[in-house]
């Protein structure tokens, strides 16, 4: 092995281990790792991950400042480089219900705002008794809440509805939803400090990003369960998710959960901002457009088996996926493995929390024949996820948001799985 190659490997492993910047990596460990890959051709970047044949007989790597994923796991948002648009979350790579913070979907309207927490503030003004400015430190001094909720972009699955392709992954279909444990202060707590004047019916929430994204929110929702979240899965918000603070409206469309929130103005009527008029409204076949359609309807998607997976042989396979509802708890998820002719109640793996992703699982004995598999979510209001046919008939081909029809995966005789609409 040439020195060049050794350096390349060392560098590759160093980067993989998150030890960039000259941190010490045990030379012995690197050499041993390199030797295990010995004989392989000099690999151009990116290198395939290399592991010793028996990790129990070689010293392991030293710890780093942050934990890293195994180089054998490469979940990724896609597309990237987006400043106005979406990066979808790899639903097929997840287990359980929590979305890893760095894989939470992103929707930006003019890039990711970079905000110094020391200079951040949230102003609450308008129809209040005492307009107040809160620093981040002050927000954190209030009693906090910690709650698990999904955030879903209401435009999620537009491509799957309008231009479905067989080669769509769960990420491509429904990747604009994510689920986190959020910590922060209830907006109702802050409104006790400011007081509210009679006539305060709505509130304009506005971001401190370059889009100054603004949405009108009904005051009852703010008082019910709205949170100014400053932490996500145990740590400060990730920058693309609104660092240092964002609005969280459990069960409501993601666009309203204003990231980088800088002010809340109590007002007497909705502001009719761009994103609650020209966008995030739902044209219907009867020549109207539904406005203020805040709540996310119940939905589910099988995340495995799904494209590009392949069932390698007949036998028992787990059918797994996620279900959620903006109206409360998921009470049941039915699975069909015969194209919707018959349905079986799946197991809800738990935790089953209101307004949160819920994991379901159904053990399926595949007989090796072509079929299609589907899931159907039911929530505590008795709402049943509609079929694609029903959805089309009621909402129309041109509807723009809230695409929650039952999703289908086609299983071919050779075990390959494709998106079926």
């Amino acid at each position, binding site marked *: 092995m040439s020195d060049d190659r050794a350096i390349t490997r060392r560098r590759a492993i160093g980067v993989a281990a998150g030890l960039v910047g000259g941190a010490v990596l045990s030379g012995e460990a690197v050499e041993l790792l390199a030797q295990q890959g010995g004989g392989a051709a000099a690999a151009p970047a990116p290198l395939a991950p290399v592991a010793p044949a028996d990790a129990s007989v070689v010293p392991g790597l030293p710890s780093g400042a942050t934990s890293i994923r195994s180089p054998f796991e490469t979940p990724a948002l896609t597309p990237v480089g987006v400043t106005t648009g979406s990066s979808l979350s790899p639903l097929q790579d997840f287990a359980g219900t929590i979305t890893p913070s760095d894989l939470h979907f992103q929707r930006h309207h003019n890039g990711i705002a970079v905000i110094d927490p020391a200079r951040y503030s949230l102003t609450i003004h308008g129809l209040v008794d005492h307009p107040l400015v809160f620093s981040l430190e002050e927000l954190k001094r209030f009693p906090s809440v910690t709650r698990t909720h999904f955030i879903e972009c209401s435009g999620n699955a537009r491509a799957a509805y309008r231009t479905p392709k067989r080669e769509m992954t769960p990420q491509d279909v429904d990747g604009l939803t994510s689920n986190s444990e959020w910590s922060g202060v209830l907006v109702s707590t802050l409104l006790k400090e400011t007081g509210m004047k009679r006539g305060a019916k709505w509130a304009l929430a506005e971001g401190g990003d370059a889009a100054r994204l603004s949405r009108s929110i009904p005051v009852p929702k703010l008082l019910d369960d709205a949170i100014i979240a400053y932490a996500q899965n145990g740590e400060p918000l990730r920058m693309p998710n609104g660092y240092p603070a964002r609005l969280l409206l459990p069960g409501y469309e993601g666009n309203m959960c204003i990231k980088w929130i800088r002010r809340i103005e109590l007002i007497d009527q909705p502001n009719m*901002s761009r994103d609650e008029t020209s966008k995030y409204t739902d044209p219907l076949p009867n*020549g109207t*457009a539904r406005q203020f359609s805040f709540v996310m309807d119940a939905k589910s998607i099988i995340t495995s088996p799904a494209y590009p997976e392949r069932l390698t042989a007949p036998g028992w396979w787990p059918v797994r996926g996620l279900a959620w509802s903006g*109206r409360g708890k998921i009470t049941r998820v039915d699975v069909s493995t015969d194209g919707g002719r018959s349905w079986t109640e799946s197991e809800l793996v738990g935790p089953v929390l209101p307004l949160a992703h819920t994991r379901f699982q159904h053990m399926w004995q595949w007989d090796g024949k072509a079929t299609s598999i589907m899931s159907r979510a039911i929530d505590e209001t008795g709402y049943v996820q509609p079929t694609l046919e029903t959805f089309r008939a009621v909402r129309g081909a*041109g509807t723009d948001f809230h695409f929650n029809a039952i999703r289908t995966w086609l299983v071919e005789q050779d075990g390959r799985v494709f998106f079926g609409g």
Partner: protein
Amino acid sequence: MRPRRSSVARCLTVLVIGGGTTLGACRRDTARESEATLPAVGHARRTPEQLGLGHSPTAQQLAAIDIDANPAGVGLPPGQGTYAEGAAVFAQKCAFCHGPKGEGLGPYPKLVGAEPKQGFPFGRDPKIVKTIGNYWPYSTTVYDYVHRAMPFNAPGSLTPNESYALAAWLLAENEVIPRDAIMNAQTLPKVQMPARGHFVLDDRRGGQPFR
């Protein structure tokens, strides 16, 4: 202050909830409690309704961020703009994204388009592009959005006069107002948008049927 529940009350609760729980089980529970060696604690002082955090913003601080305008015209600043002024601003600051006539370029949306003037077929046909003229229900949204978020490479840089002028140009190009209309805090909120009557409130509910 939260009252402590007596062991009797807890015992009754166990009976009610458990149904088949015997009194013997209750006695054991009581016995275990007496053996508990948990350290004694005082009661936390009740947190007051207000903590007195935060400070009052100055008028200047509020003015810097209170940038919205609503359909009643609240928030629209002094100033005005004409179609001709708007055409010049658009050519200079907007056309390189939206196209010289607001026809849209690549990912940057089409802004101008008065058709279809009849009906509101968007729900049936996803190919019809929504524009200010055929879809936006409120005229003040044009000012509010342009002034807050545009141009994309320098949001917040437009003067009120420039934003009024762009509203005048955009609304006239969309055949909503005549080219000689001057837009200001009084005239803009009075502009009736063609799509206004097509918007309805959300009627979805939980349960059935699917809406």
